[in-house]
């Protein structure tokens, strides 16, 4: 793949990490800083990675999807709702409730995507408008149901939010177990295995799905046909490929990725739902997708950059006292808080060369 893109990303991440090591290195050992930042980076990149994969499947098949934000939000809500229902009303244990929650999140992402596919394929609605519809719809539905179910007096939960069944567990225990004992993983010191690999199921599956998506897109029949449909649908049609069917299925697959990203918010990160909690992550995912030139690994790398800038923000707050006076501007939390968004803009202005979308991206197919 494109080594310039990847070395550029590597450089940015090194700079971001370097800043924190320079500032906090005297108080805490650099190794600890780096490993904890790595852990944060991976965690924060999770919904972005999944969102970017969602975009890749849709757009590689020729359907522009700016509704990822909305799909994530809806999935976050419905997944969370399902887990509470299972836990509070049907009194299942936390593990089952959470699993059902994740499944529900994936399904609701898929359903919203199906709506998007239907609008753009069957009715040839402009896909930007279709995606906007999804976003508005998701905000409306989740906000409304959230109020109705939890904050209305006569509602099913009687006006107060019940306890969530908790969060998905970290997998580090089982990982350490797999590596064979207390002595740390792969010969690495315990603190690294304890923090970097201290990840939860959605985060781990995001990484696995990057590799799986790459394999599917570039090494299987499905992938070849998907890309053909997004590049030159008529050519695909002339060799007997059902263009619209391919598009429907890929958009729904994409929606399910967005759904899993939604599960991250309410079932893995924090045990609660708030209106608008996806906070633009869906759109940053699209930036990651573009920056990664519509490839899973490229998009993952871009998502990691956003994750790293987030890690910078968190760590700078921690080391606030030791920021040297001539770097005082870094004490301003809004300066660092803006970092991910400034990076998005820099990256999107095509700092390192141009990216090429699939040729038929966004165009409905007509014979």
């Amino acid at each position: 793949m494109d080594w310039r893109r990847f070395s550029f990303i590597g450089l940015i991440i090194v700079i971001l990490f370097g800043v924190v090591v320079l500032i906090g290195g005297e108080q805490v050992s650099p190794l600890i800083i780096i490993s904890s930042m790595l852990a944060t980076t991976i965690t924060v990149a999770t919904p972005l990675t999944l969102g970017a994969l969602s975009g890749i499947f849709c757009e590689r098949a020729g359907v522009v999807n700016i509704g990822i934000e909305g799909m994530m939000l809806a999935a976050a809500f419905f997944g969370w709702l399902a887990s509470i229902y299972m836990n509070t009303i049907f009194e299942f244990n936390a593990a089952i409730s959470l699993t059902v929650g994740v499944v529900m999140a994936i399904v609701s992402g898929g359903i919203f995507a199906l709506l998007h596919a239907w609008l753009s394929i069957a009715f040839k609605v402009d896909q930007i408008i279709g995606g906007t519809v999804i976003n508005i719809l998701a905000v409306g539905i989740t906000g409304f149901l959230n109020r109705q179910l939890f904050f209305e007096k006569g509602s099913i939960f009687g006006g107060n939010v019940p306890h969530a069944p908790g969060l998905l567990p970290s997998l580090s225990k089982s990982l350490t177990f797999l590596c064979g004992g207390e002595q740390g993983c792969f010969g690495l010191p315990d603190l690294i295995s304890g923090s970097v690999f201290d990840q939860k199921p959605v985060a781990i599956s995001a990484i696995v799905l990057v590799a799986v998506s790459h394999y599917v897109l570039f090494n299987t029949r499905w992938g070849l046909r998907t890309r053909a449909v997004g590049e030159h649908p008529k050519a695909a049609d002339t060799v007997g490929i059902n263009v619209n069917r391919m598009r429907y299925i890929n958009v729904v697959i994409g929606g399910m990725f967005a759904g899993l990203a939604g599960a991250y918010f309410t079932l893995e990160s924090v045990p609660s739902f708030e209106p608008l909690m996806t906070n633009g992550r869906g759109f940053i995912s699209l930036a990651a997708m573009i920056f990664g030139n519509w490839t899973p690994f490229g998009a993952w790398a871009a998502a990691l950059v956003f994750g790293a800038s987030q890690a910078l923000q968190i760590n700078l707050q921690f080391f606030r006292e030791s920021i040297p006076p001539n770097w005082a501007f870094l004490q301003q939390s809004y300066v660092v808080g803006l970092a991910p968004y400034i990076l998005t803009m820099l990256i999107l202005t095509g700092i390192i060369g141009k990216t090429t979308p699939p040729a038929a991206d966004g165009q409905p197919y007509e014979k």
Partner: protein
Amino acid sequence: MSEKKIVLDARGITKQFPGVLANDLVDFDLREGEVHALLGENGAGKSTLMNVLYGLYKADSGEVKVNGENLILSSPRDAIYKGIGMVHQHFMLVPVFSVTENIMLGAETDHRATPNESPLVKLDRKEVAQKVKSLSQQYGLEVEPAAIVGDLPVGVQQRVEIVKALYRNANILILDEPTAVLTPQEADDLFRIVHELTTRGVSIVFITHKLKEVLAIADRITVMRGGKVVGTTTPQETDEHQLAAMMVGRDVILTVEKEVAHPADDVLLVEKLRVRDVRDIETVRGVSFTVRAGEILGIAGVQGNGQTELAEALTGLRRIEGGTIQLAEKNLTGKTPRIFTESGLAHIPEDRQRHGLVLGYTVADNMVLCDYYKAPFGVNGVLQQKALDENSRRLIQEYDVRTPSPYVSAGKLSGGNQQKVIVARELSRANVKLVVANQPTRGLDVGSIEYIHKEIIAMRDRGVAVLLISAELDEVMALSDRIAVMYHGEIVTTVDAKSVTREQLGLWMAGSKVQQPAA
């Protein structure tokens, strides 16, 4: 000789598009191992008929039999499964895919498009590449399996399309205007391949507008007009004139008639022009020439010797590396296409779908692509629909564009009619001083060629300078007053069109040194 068996038999095919009856009860059959040529005007319904036989379009009525067996065609898959392959008029290849990927697409694991395996089967590019290699050796169709299709010249892309069909074991091959985009050398190559295929029992439908070709390679000839079959004949029973008359419904003058030119002042002055192509290779290497008002300068040359880049540079579409371009005493070096157009340039581009039209726009809009912002079409930034309407109706009539209305999108017209929209727009504009015509009659039927040739000569006689670039040596010789021969990015000589022979031109085009000083 006994009659060969009929492999493909279509009866009563009818296909209605909004506003056009493209096929009207068409009967067509194909015998084993023959080349059956299909002729007809632009918009006669040839491509439509073939797309129906290939399962891409669904006919409104009619039936298709393959080897005597009734066939229900609901997708190209059904046709492919019965051994029908098609090379489309506008190629159906994914430019960013490799040759191998394009060939295996839709038939990834077995040679036909069967859906019965898991969609997640692993692609075996190596094995397919191997098969492609052996097919290409077997039939003399040279293709490089690992090459990216978008980088290949059209002639090679066409070979990829043919290999793609053979890979699916096609024994009925439909070639829709295969020679329109080929150089004469590539066309000869194709005829050899066609012959090779027929000796191996492949039956071929061959669509073309070039009557000489038809007479040379067809076993039978069917002519269509206005969606109907006019008749079927053989090369032995007919000749060019009769075929032309059958196609167009009137007598066509196949030779170009023109008076002596009266050239005046220099209109286009090109000096030491150097241009690089997309791969950053210098393909125009220090070219100097002039075109005078009232003359036609033809550029002869084997395609790929810099003509494409020359035309793009002369129309402001490609950045130049060095030299100057002067049009009507204005220095246009490094200026934008808009300024070229405003200085009196009309341009008929080589690739009609990429540079000539906005396929999604209506015919009426496409006809004002250069002038939409000027009166009478645009007044204070507002399009004047009435002026657009009148303009398009007039041009459609004059240039005989076959379209149900000015308001269908250009992409829905037949290939030749798309070309006519461009020619009509460019030649009809006000204040044209120079016409750069690159393959102006590509894909046109004989009747339209006759009309456009007349129009180009009429422009010349009105004092317009014309630069004609064409892969058809016959066209260059018939129209031009002077001929410049381009070889390897340079103009090797410029001669008087009347005093040169075809053979001599051919030699120069192939790179042999010029002996005597030229006119």
